[in-house]
C-alpha cells in the first residue's frame, strides 16, 4: 500500500484542534454545564483496609442543597471488572464499597447536591463506622500463606488459565546457567506514578426527553466506557449515548470507568444532569496509578558477553483491584526479556493484590518498568563481563528472523540501527563490526 510519492502524509501540517486550543474555545468536559445540573462528590475511605459497618448520612442530609446519597445498594450490578469485555474475569471490584474497604480513598458513597460546595460539605459530614483491618502493602508479603486474603477466590494473585502467574518458557534456562561463565543477578523496583493530566477525569450525565442518558466524558475509550456503564447499571446499551473525543491529557489515566456509571445512575435517579469531576487530590490519590513493579533478574552470560539464559520473576502491584493490571502483566511478560536474542528464557509474572490505590494502564503499560529493569541489568552485565555498554547491546541485539521468548519470529527489528544512529549523534565512534551490523542480516549467533 505504500505509494511512491506521498502528498500530505509525512507533512507537518498544523493541528486540526490548534485554533480551538490557543483561543480557549475547545470545549472540555468541565466546560459543559446545564440548567438544573447537580454536582456529585464521593465519600471515600480514610484507611487502606477495613470492614464497613455503617454509614450515617443524617448530618449530611441537613446541608442546604443536599439532594441524595447513593450506596452500593443503589447500583444494579455493583461488582464488576473492567476487562470483562475482553474476557478477563471474574468480577471483583465494587462500584461502591459493600462491606470491605480495600484501599485508602476507595469510593464508599456518592452524594449529589445543588452546588459543588454543598456536595463537598455534605461529604465532610458523613460518618463512617469502620473496623480497621491489618493492611497488606508489599507484593511479596501479600503472596505469603499467612497474609490477609483480599480476593473471594482465596489468593492475593490473579489466576491465568489455572496458572498462578503469566509464564513464558523458551529453551532450558538451567542448562544455560550451567554453560554460562557469569551469573548476573538484579532486583529492580518501580514506584506507583500518577498520570497527572492537566485536566482531571470528569463526566456529565444528562437525562434526555426520550429516556436516554447522554454522557459527556473525557474517557480515552468511548465504547469501552459505554459498555461497562450499561453492564453496571443493567440498562440496555441503546439507553446510553456517549459523547467525547477531546481529552485534556490521558496517558492511560482515563481508561477506567470510575465516574460514568455512578454519574449516570445519579442522573437516572434524580432526572437531572449530574457532573462528576475528580479534584486534583482525587486524581492523585484515588484514580488509578501506574502500578509499582518488582522485578528479579538472573542472567547467564558467556565470557564474550552473550546472554545465554535469562530468568525473571516479576510482581506487579495491582493494588486492590484488577483494573488493567492482569493484562499489563501479559504485555510485560512478552517484553521484559528485551530486544535481545536469548536462547533460554524463563519468566514468571505475578499480578498481586495489595491494600493500595489500584494500578492500571499508563503510557508504556507494563513495558516501562521492564525497559528500566532490563536496560539497567544490561549495564550490570557489561560491567561484569568487562564490556562497554554499547558492545553488550550490539552483541545481543535481536535481528529479523530471531525467535522471541514468546515464540514469535522477529519481523521488524531496528534496534541495531537506532543504536548506530544514537552513537553517531553523540559522537561515539563504534568499532567497525558494530557499524556494519544490520537488523536485516541474520548472522550466526
Amino acid at each position, binding site marked *: 500500500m505504500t505509494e511512491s510519492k506521498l502528498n500530505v502524509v509525512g507533512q507537518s501540517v498544523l493541528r486540526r484542534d490548534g485554533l480551538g486550543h490557543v483561543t480557549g474555545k475547545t470545549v472540555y468536559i468541565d466546560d459543559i454545564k446545564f440548567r438544573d445540573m447537580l454536582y456529585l*462528590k464521593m465519600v471515600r475511605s480514610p484507611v487502606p483496609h477495613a470492614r464497613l459497618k455503617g454509614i450515617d448520612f443524617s448530618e449530611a442530609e441537613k446541608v442546604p442543597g443536599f439532594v441524595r446519597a447513593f450506596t452500593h445498594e443503589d447500583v444494579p450490578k455493583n461488582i464488576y471488572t473492567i476487562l470483562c469485555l475482553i474476557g478477563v474475569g471474574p468480577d471483583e471490584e465494587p462500584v461502591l464499597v459493600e462491606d470491605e474497604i480495600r484501599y485508602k480513598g476507595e469510593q464508599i458513597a456518592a452524594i449529589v447536591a445543588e*452546588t459543588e*460546595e454543598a456536595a463537598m460539605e455534605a*461529604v465532610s459530614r458523613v460518618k463512617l463506622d469502620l473496623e480497621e483491618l491489618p493492611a497488606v502493602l508489599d507484593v511479596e508479603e501479600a503472596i505469603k500463606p499467612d497474609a490477609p486474603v483480599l480476593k473471594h477466590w482465596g489468593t492475593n494473585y490473579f489466576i491465568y488459565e489455572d496458572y498462578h502467574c503469566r509464564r513464558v518458557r523458551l529453551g532450558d534456562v538451567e542448562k544455560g546457567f550451567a554453560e554460562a561463565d557469569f551469573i548476573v543477578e538484579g532486583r529492580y523496583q518501580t514506584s506507583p506514578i500518577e498520570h497527572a493530566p492537566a485536566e482531571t477525569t470528569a463526566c456529565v450525565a444528562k437525562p434526555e426527553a426520550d429516556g436516554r442518558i447522554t454522557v459527556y466524558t473525557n474517557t480515552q475509550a468511548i465504547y469501552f466506557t459505554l459498555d461497562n456503564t450499561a453492564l453496571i447499571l443493567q440498562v440496555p446499551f441503546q439507553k446510553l449515548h456517549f459523547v467525547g473525543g477531546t481529552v485534556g491529557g490521558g496517558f492511560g489515566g482515563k481508561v477506567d470507568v470510575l465516574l460514568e456509571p455512578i454519574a449516570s445512575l445519579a442522573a437516572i435517579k434524580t432526572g437531572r444532569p449530574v457532573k462528576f469531576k475528580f479534584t486534583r487530590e482525587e486524581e492523585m490519590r484515588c484514580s488509578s496509578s501506574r502500578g509499582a513493579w518488582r522485578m528479579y533478574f538472573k542472567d547467564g552470560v558467556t565470557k564474550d558477553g552473550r546472554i545465554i539464559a535469562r530468568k525473571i520473576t516479576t510482581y506487579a502491584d495491582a493494588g486492590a483491584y484488577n483494573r488493567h493490571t492482569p493484562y499489563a502483566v501479559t504485555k510485560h511478560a512478552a517484553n521484559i526479556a528485551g530486544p535481545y536474542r536469548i536462547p533460554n528464557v524463563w519468566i514468571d509474572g505475578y499480578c498481586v493484590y495489595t491494600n493500595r490505590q489500584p494500578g492500571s494502564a499508563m503510557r508504556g503499560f507494563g513495558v516501562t518498568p521492564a525497559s528500566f529493569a532490563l536496560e539497567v541489568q544490561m549495564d550490570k552485565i557489561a560491567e561484569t563481563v568487562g564490556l562497554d555498554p554499547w558492545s553488550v547491546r550490539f552483541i545481543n541485539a535481536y535481528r529479523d528472523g530471531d525467535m522471541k521468548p514468546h515464540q514469535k519470529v522477529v519481523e521488524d527489528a531496528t534496534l541495531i540501527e537506532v543504536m548506530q544512529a544514537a552513537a553517531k549523534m553523540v559522537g561515539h565512534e563504534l568499532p567497525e563490526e558494530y557499524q556494519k551490523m544490520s537488523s536485516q542480516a541474520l548472522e550466526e549467533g
Partner: protein
Amino acid sequence: MNKKEYFLPQSVDEATQILAEFGPSLLVMAGGTIAMPLINEGISFPENVMGLRRAGLDYVSGSNGTVQVGATATFTQIMEVIEIPMLAIAAQNIGGWAIRNMGTAGGNLFAPPPAGDFAVALLAMNAQVKLVSAKGERILPLADFYTGFMTTQLSAGELVAEIQVPKPSGRTAYIKYGRRHANTPAIVTVAAHLVFDGERISDARLVLGGVGPHPKRSPKAEGALVGSSLNAGSIEAAAAAAAAECEPFTDAIATEWYRRKMVDVYVRRTLSQVNG
C-alpha cells in the same frame, strides 16, 4: 453554602473592628494562597471571611534604616526592594509568578512548614512584627512570634499589620533547597546574617526553615561562629551544630534523615556564599 459574608475592610481600623466583633471564627485572609485551596477542596468551610487586601497594608517603604513591609505586600512588590537584597531573593524563591503576585508577607507567616520560608530571611534580619487589634498595637520580635507548629503569639482580635525589617549591618546569604529550582516546597531553607569586626564575626544570625515546627534560629550554630573568623573550620562547626540542633520531619518531599543531612550541606553552602 453557609458562607455568610465576605468582608473587605478599607482600613486597618475597620478590619480590627470586624475581627473584634466576630472573634476567632472569622477567617482572616490576605493573598488567599493558603486558605483558598483548603476551601476549594472541601477541607475547610469557613462561615465568615475577611480579606485584607484593601485595608491599606499593601506597602513597602523604607525609613531610618528599616524597611516597613505591610502585611499584604505581595512577593512581587517585595522583589523590588533594593535596600535589602536578601528579601528580594527570598521573595523570588516563593511559588511561581502568579503566586508571587498574590501571596503576601503577612500571610506567609502562617504557612505550614515546609512552606513559609520568607520568614527565614526575616528572622535573619532580626525583623519585628506589628500586631494590631481594636485595643491598640504591639510590636514584638519575629523570633518571639512563633510558639510552635502552626501556633503564634497572635491573640484573639489581633492581626499582623506590618513587618519591620532593619537593614542588615553585616553580610547576608540565603539559599532555598527543594526538589525543583522554582515553585517548590523546601527541603531546607537557610539564611545567614553575619556582622564582622575586622575578620572576626561579632554577631551571627543563622536561620533554618523546613526543618522544625516553624522557621527558627539555630543558636548553637550561631555560637560556633561568633568570635571566630569565617573559615572552613567555623563553617564546619556551625553546620554540624545546626544539623544537630534542628528538628526535621518527614513529609512527601523528604525524610527527616535527608533534611538533617541537607541542613549540614546547606548551612555550609550558605556560609560559603557569605564568604564569597
